[in-house]
C-alpha cells in the first residue's frame, strides 16, 4: 500500500476512534451526574438499600466506561506520537484526554465523599435509621436509576468486567489517573474551550423550566402580618397560588 493510502486510512481510523471517545465521554458525564444525584441522598431520610444498590450499579457502569475509555485514549495518544497525525488531530485527542481526566477527578471526589458518608451512616441495623437526617427528600431516585440504565456506550456490551467494590474502585481510579498522567505527557493548558463563555445560557432548553424562586412559591396567608411571600414572583404565579 502506498504511504499516502496508509496515512488516509490511519486518519480515518483515528477519526472513528475519536468519535467513539466523544460519545463515551458524554456517557460518562451522564453516569457521573446521576451518581451525584444518588449520593446527595446518602445519610438523609431517603437513604436505604435501594439507593445503595443503585449507587453500586451506577458505579460499576462508570467503571466499565472509564476503563475502556482510558485504554482507547492512551492508545490514541501514544499512536499519534509515532504516526502521521496532523496537528489538528493531535489537538482533538489532547482535548479528549483533558476532558476525560477532569471527569475522572470529579468522579473520584464524589466517590470519596460517598465512601465517607457510607462509613458514617452504615444502615446495618434498624435503629440506625433514627440517625438519618430529615432533609425533606422522600424517595425519588427511580427516575435517576432509569436514566442510568439508558446510558449507551460503544463497548459496554463487548467488554464485561466485574465491578469492584467501593474501596478498590477508589484506589483503582487513583492508580489509573497517575498512570495515565505519567505515560502520556499532555500539556493541560494548551487545550482551549470550543464554546465561548455564557454560550450555554443561550441554548434552548427542552421545555421552559421554572426557576427555583418560582418553585419555592409559598401560599400567601390572607390575614396578613406575616406574609411569607418569596421575593421575586411573577403576578401570574401569584394569582395561581393565592389562597383566599
Amino acid at each position: 500500500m502506498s504511504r499516502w493510502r496508509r496515512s488516509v486510512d490511519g486518519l480515518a481510523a483515528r477519526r472513528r476512534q475519536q468519535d467513539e471517545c466523544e460519545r463515551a465521554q458524554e456517557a460518562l458525564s451522564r453516569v457521573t451526574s446521576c451518581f451525584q444525584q444518588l449520593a446527595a441522598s446518602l445519610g438523609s431520610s431517603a437513604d436505604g438499600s435501594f439507593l445503595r444498590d443503585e449507587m453500586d450499579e451506577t458505579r460499576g457502569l462508570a467503571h466499565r466506561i472509564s476503563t475502556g475509555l482510558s485504554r482507547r485514549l492512551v492508545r490514541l495518544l501514544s499512536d499519534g506520537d509515532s504516526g502521521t497525525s496532523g496537528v489538528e488531530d493531535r489537538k482533538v485527542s489532547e482535548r479528549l484526554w483533558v476532558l476525560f481526566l477532569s471527569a475522572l477527578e470529579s468522579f473520584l471526589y464524589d466517590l470519596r465523599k460517598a465512601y465517607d458518608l457510607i462509613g458514617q451512616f452504615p444502615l446495618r441495623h434498624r435503629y440506625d435509621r433514627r440517625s438519618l437526617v430529615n432533609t425533606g427528600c422522600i424517595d425519588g431516585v427511580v427516575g435517576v436509576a432509569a436514566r442510568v440504565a439508558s446510558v449507551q456506550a460503544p463497548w459496554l456490551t463487548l467488554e464485561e468486567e466485574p465491578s469492584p467494590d467501593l474501596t478498590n474502585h477508589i484506589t483503582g481510579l487513583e492508580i489509573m489517573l497517575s498512570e495515565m498522567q505519567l505515560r502520556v505527557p499532555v500539556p493541560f493548558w494548551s487545550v482551549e474551550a470550543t464554546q465561548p463563555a455564557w454560550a450555554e445560557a443561550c441554548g434552548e432548553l427542552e421545555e421552559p423550566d421554572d426557576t427555583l424562586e418560582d418553585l419555592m412559591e409559598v401560599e400567601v396567608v390572607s390575614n396578613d402580618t406575616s406574609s411569607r411571600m418569596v421575593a421575586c414572583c411573577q403576578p401570574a404565579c401569584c394569582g395561581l397560588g393565592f389562597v383566599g
Partner: protein
Amino acid sequence: MTIRNTLRDHGQRYRPRMACLKKAEKVLLEMQDPKTGVKSQPQRLVITTIPHAITGEDIIAWLADKFHIDAQEARSFGSMLVALGYIYPLQDHKRLVIKPDASLYRFQTPYFWPTQQWPVEDTDYAIYLAKRNIRKKGILELHEQEHYNRLHKWMNHKWDFIVMQAKEQYRAAKERKKPDRVVFDCQERAYWVVHRPPPGTVSAMDYGLDRLVDPHADEATTPDYYERIMIFTQQSIMRPRVKSSVSIGALVKYCATYHNHDPFLSKCLPSNPWLTDDVTYWTLNMPYVEIPTKMRVERWTFSFAELLSDPRGRDDFRLFLKKEFSGENLAFWEGCEDLKWGEAATMREKAENIYKTFLARGAPRWINIDGKTMEITVKGLKHPHRYVLDAAQTHIYMLMKKDSYGRYQKSPVFKDTVKKAICPDEHRFTDAQLEQNARKRRPSVSPIILRQMEREQRAKMAANVDITQLCRFTTPVPHLAVYSGISDFPTANTSPSLPFLAHTPCPSPISVALDSTSASERRAEAADGDAKGNLAARTPAAGNVSKSRMALSLRRLLKRGCTPTTMFASLSPKCHSAAGTSSRIQPISPDQPSQAPPRRIGNFFQIKVDIPPECRIYPIESEDEEEENRAASRGGVGTKEIICPWESLTPHNGTG
C-alpha cells in the same frame, strides 16, 4: 510585667481550627431523633408540600432545653449552625442567621455538610454556575458573574467538561419528582451560599487558608512523635515562671488599657470595615498618614513599644528627637532592627555601617552607651551575626524609653499632633447603603506596591538625615552660638588653604541656603584675609564658581561668628563634653598635617577641621575635591573630614 508580642506573634493562632464541625455534627444527629429531636412540620408550597421543615423558634427552644442555656446563647448557637451550613433558611437564604420566630429552616443533607477533609473545589462551583446559567438563561447575580468570568478564564482547558457536566446534571436532576427536585435545588444553593458567600453574607466556612494538617486525623505514634513530646515537655520545665497574681494583673491591666481600642469590644470609628464594607477606617489609619486619628495618638501614650511600632508614631518621635538633636539614638535603634530582620546577604555590610556610623570613636552620629556594652559589642562585631548589636540596642532603647519618651509626651511636637488629630464621626448606614457598599467592594493596594513605597520612603529618609542636621549648624550665627562652648580644639594655625565646599551629588542645603547671597558681596569679603588669595586664585579653576563663593561666605560667617569648630562627631548637645576631648577624634591630629591623604584611606572617618575659626563643614566629598584638597593642604593643617557613609561616592569608602 508587660504583655509582649501582641503584634509580631508568629504563633499558631491564625490557622482555622474547625474541631467544632465534628461536635456540630453530633448535635445535628441528635436533633433528628423522632422522639426527642426537633419538631418538624410540612412546608406548604404552591406546587406541593415538603416535609421536614423546622421553625427557628423550635430550634432555639430545643437547644436551650438540651444544653440548659438561656435563649440568647441558644440563638447564637443556632446561628452558628446556620453559618456553618448544617441548617439552611428557606426564606431569605442569603442571611445565615437564626430568627427566633416562625421562619422556616431545613437540615442540610450530609453530602453537602461542611468539612475540611473534602476541600471545596472550584470545578464544582463552575459546574454549579453553568447550571444556574442554563436555568436562568444568563441572568446571574453580580458576584456570580464575576466568579463565572474568572473561572472561565482559569479553567478554560476543562470548560467543555464543565458545560457538559452541567447539562447532564441538570437533566439528571429533572428526573426526580418535583418536591425532591425543589429540595435538592435548595440544598445545593445553600451549600454554595456558605462556601462562596455573596457580598454581605457572613459565612463561618469563609475562613481563608487551611491548616496543613487535619486536626481530626490520628497521628502516628512513631519514635519521632515521642521525641517531639519529650522536647516540648523539657522546654516547658525550663520556661521561666511568673507568679499568677503578677501575670493576671498584667492581663487585667492590658485588657483595661486596650478595651476602648478593640474593634470587637468597642465601637470602631467611623465604622468597622468588616461589618459595613466601608474602608474609611483603613484609609484614616494608613501607616504613614499625615494626620493620625485620636485613638491612634492615644495608643502612643500607652507604652514606648506602641509608639515605636506605629510608623506614624515613630515619625513623630523622630521629629521630636531631631529638634532635640538626639536623633542618632533612634537611627541606631532602627539600624539594629534592620540588621535583625533584614536579609542575610547584606548583614555583614550593615553591621559594619552601623559600627562606623554610630559606635566607632569619632563617628558622626556617635551614641552614648556605657563601656561594658561597648566592649561586648565591639568584640561581637569581629564575627557579626544578626543579634550582635542586641545589647547596645537594648541599652539605647531603655535610654530612649526612660529619657526621651517622657519628654516627648510633654513636648510641643506631641501636643501639636494631639491637637491636630482627627476623630471621625460614626457612620450610620441604612440597609440599602450597606448593600451598595457591599457591591462596591474592591481589593486594596497591592502589598508589592506598598513595600515599594516603604522602601522609597526609607531611602529618602536615609538620604536626608544628616544634611538637614548640618543645616542647622551652618545657618547664620545665632544658631552657631550653641556650639561656641567648644573651644578646646587643638590648635591648627597654618593657613587654611582648603578650597571650597563640597560639591554634593544631591543638592546640599548649604548651597540652597546660601544661594541667594549675591556674588559681588562675597567676592568683596573674600578680598580680605591673606588666605583668601589662594582661594580667589582657585575659584576660576573650579568648575563650580558659585559654590566656591558660598564656601567663602561660609568661612566669613563662621569666622565672624566665633571661635569654635563644629565637631560633627556629635550632633547632639549632650555630647559637648565628649566633643571636646580630642581622643574622640580620629587619629589624624593637626600635629601631623601631612598625614591627611594616606590616612584618609586607612580610616573611614576623618574629621576635617581647619584651624579655628576656619571650620569647614563638608558633608560630602567628591573625588575631585579630595584631589584638590590634598594638593591644597600639603603644607596646611591636618585635614579632617567627615564622610557620610551612605552618600560618599569615593572609592575608599569600603561599602560604597
